[in-house]
């Protein structure tokens, strides 16, 4: 490891902060992947990985990804719920990798609800 210069401190901070920001709260976007038994069976794990990969490609530190149990609509799995701070949460159903990636890019990053795949608005 090369010796640091003062400007390197900020670089390390930015890099590590992307990861540790999770511990600080203040998230703007929350993506919940439904991971009940039914969800996992129909591929929720792939959806979760896709979302995580897409997040890893950005610099954003204000998006959190969590899991929850079965959303109660087993036939529509895999599903995710995306909530932007101050907006109503949107549930997306029957996802695949491409859809999940697009939802992340458009809705999570840009704020455009992907109406075609949206199942419902609001929480239960």
């Amino acid at each position: 490891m090369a010796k640091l210069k003062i400007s390197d401190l900020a670089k390390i901070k930015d890099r590590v902060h992307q990861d540790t920001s999770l511990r600080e709260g203040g998230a703007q976007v929350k993506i919940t992947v439904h991971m009940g038994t039914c969800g996992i069976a129909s591929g929720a794990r792939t959806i979760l990985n896709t979302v995580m990969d897409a997040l890893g490609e950005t610099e954003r530190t204000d998006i959190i990804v969590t899991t929850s149990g079965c959303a109660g609509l087993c036939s529509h799995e895999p599903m995710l719920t995306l909530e932007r701070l101050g907006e109503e949460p949107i549930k997306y159903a029957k996802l695949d990798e491409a859809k999940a990636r697009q939802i992340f890019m458009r809705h999570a990053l840009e704020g455009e609800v992907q109406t075609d795949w949206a199942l419902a608005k609001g929480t239960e």
Partner: protein
Amino acid sequence: MKRFRMHMLICGGTGCQAAGSVEFKEALEAELKKQDASDEVAVVETGCNGFCAMGPVLVTYPEGIFYVGLTDKDVPELVEEHVLKGRPVERLFYKEPSAKELIPEMNDIPFFAHQELIALRNRGVLDAESIDEYIARDGYQALAQALTQMTPEEIVDEVKKSDLRGRGGGGFPTGLKWEFCQKAPGEQKFVLCNADEGDPGAFMDRSILEADPHSVVEGMTIAAKAIGSSVGYVYCRAEYPLAVYRLQLAIDQAKEYGLLGTNILDTGFDFDLHIYQGAGAFVCGEETALMRSIEGKRGMPRPRPPFPAQAGLWNKPTILNNVETWANIPQIISKGGDWYASIGTEDSKGTKVFALTGHIHNIGLVEVPMGTTIRSIIYDIGGGIPKKHRKFKAVQLGGPSGGCIPEEYLDTPCEYDAIVKAGAIMGSGGMIVMDDSTCMVDMARFFMDFVQDESCGKCTPCREGTRRMLQILEKICDGKGEVSDIETLEELSATIQEASLCGLGQTGPNPVLSTLRYFKEEYEAHVIDKKCPARTCVALLDFVVNEEACTKCGVCFRACPVDAISWKKKEPAFIHLDKCIQCKTCIDKCKFDAID
């Protein structure tokens, strides 16, 4: 960059490790691997989180859910339910004793909600073994600022402005100490850290070194620039292996990054830091003894002056500060002395860390703004006395050098002067809470035993005087005390305080004096009535059931390990003295103080 969606922060402080956090962490990592979630979830070992009574503890992010009392058996359920399905496992939540409800989120727990963290700001939120995480929390920014934008005088001024006083017990103004050393002539100067922490019941400094060692490294390096020093030592007792390990790791990492060593941060400044492990003598926490010990000599104090700022380690100008004092420095530099001085009270600025132990619900480490009342620490944060049938009696501050504070002074604010007025000292932060099952004479005897044992023997008043005081206290606890003994204790105390060479002897009689001040009737009960009101001193107990007080519940009968108690329903218990081994189990169990 690959990211984690969840962070699981396991407390890896000594308390939690003793309670099984290492096994828990291994099981957790194995289970995550088995469930193919290792690259989704980061498992991070932090330093002491403070809530030692509840260990092992775990905090999960982003939710901020707080789990307590975990074992490796809980791991499969935790991973299956919480990690995979996002359903927090309620049965492992912390239960607040006063609220009777489950409190999963850390910020809702009163133990944490009443604290204000400066010295402990990184506890439980960063990986204590990662310099990168420290840097991500603005670590080493203050050093960069001190090295490039501040003159040595400006650094000292900032610390003076903060009004920070030494946290090792003496409470000497830190900025002033640095100024003396800065102005002292000499090429070679030293920066030292006192991590000897000898007070029984204190573990603040150990926790800081375990949780956030870089804060101490950074603070010391800033001081090195201020006084013009190129070498420093941390004097840490060898009984703190985890603290020594993490500090050494921090020093190595800092060297690798060029934050210690030559040409720090490419500014041309050099400073090197070493650990010196002490063998654990209490007197080696005294500054002149500590320096002799580092020199390789027997740790004994010498008279002052000259003060270390003029002639310290190897007779060179030296500053010595306590671990907690050091941990405050980086933030004083980056946020400013005025900011620090805005916290606390007129007399005492900033915050203070206390190690809360004894008869208290939430044993652990707390940091509060100066001025917080002792009552608030014990009840709001500490959760009060755990046994319902027991009442608060006193709290010992400052360990063997300090004194006790009884109920009527509980509203004393944490301020240097106010605590002295109440008969104790701020001390380094040990706070031992005692309920009414504690005998104050026995407590004073315990501390005198400690002081007598730790006296280095160099000066006569301390060596002989403390021994004499201990003999008298033992005699009183043994039921052989006389009224004149109390007077002799007072006389001896005055002489030892006056004539001892160092703080050990000068403050050694304090526990006796403060218990005499507040609990003299308890001494009198011992010597005149030959009774120990708290039922602690065995020689003064009869082991006879008081039939009026006995509720005939039979608890003592069931608890007796040698079947020396007979009891039938609706009849008072009876102790057969020929069989009784005087172990006091019955007395401890009886909720009605019915055994005399």
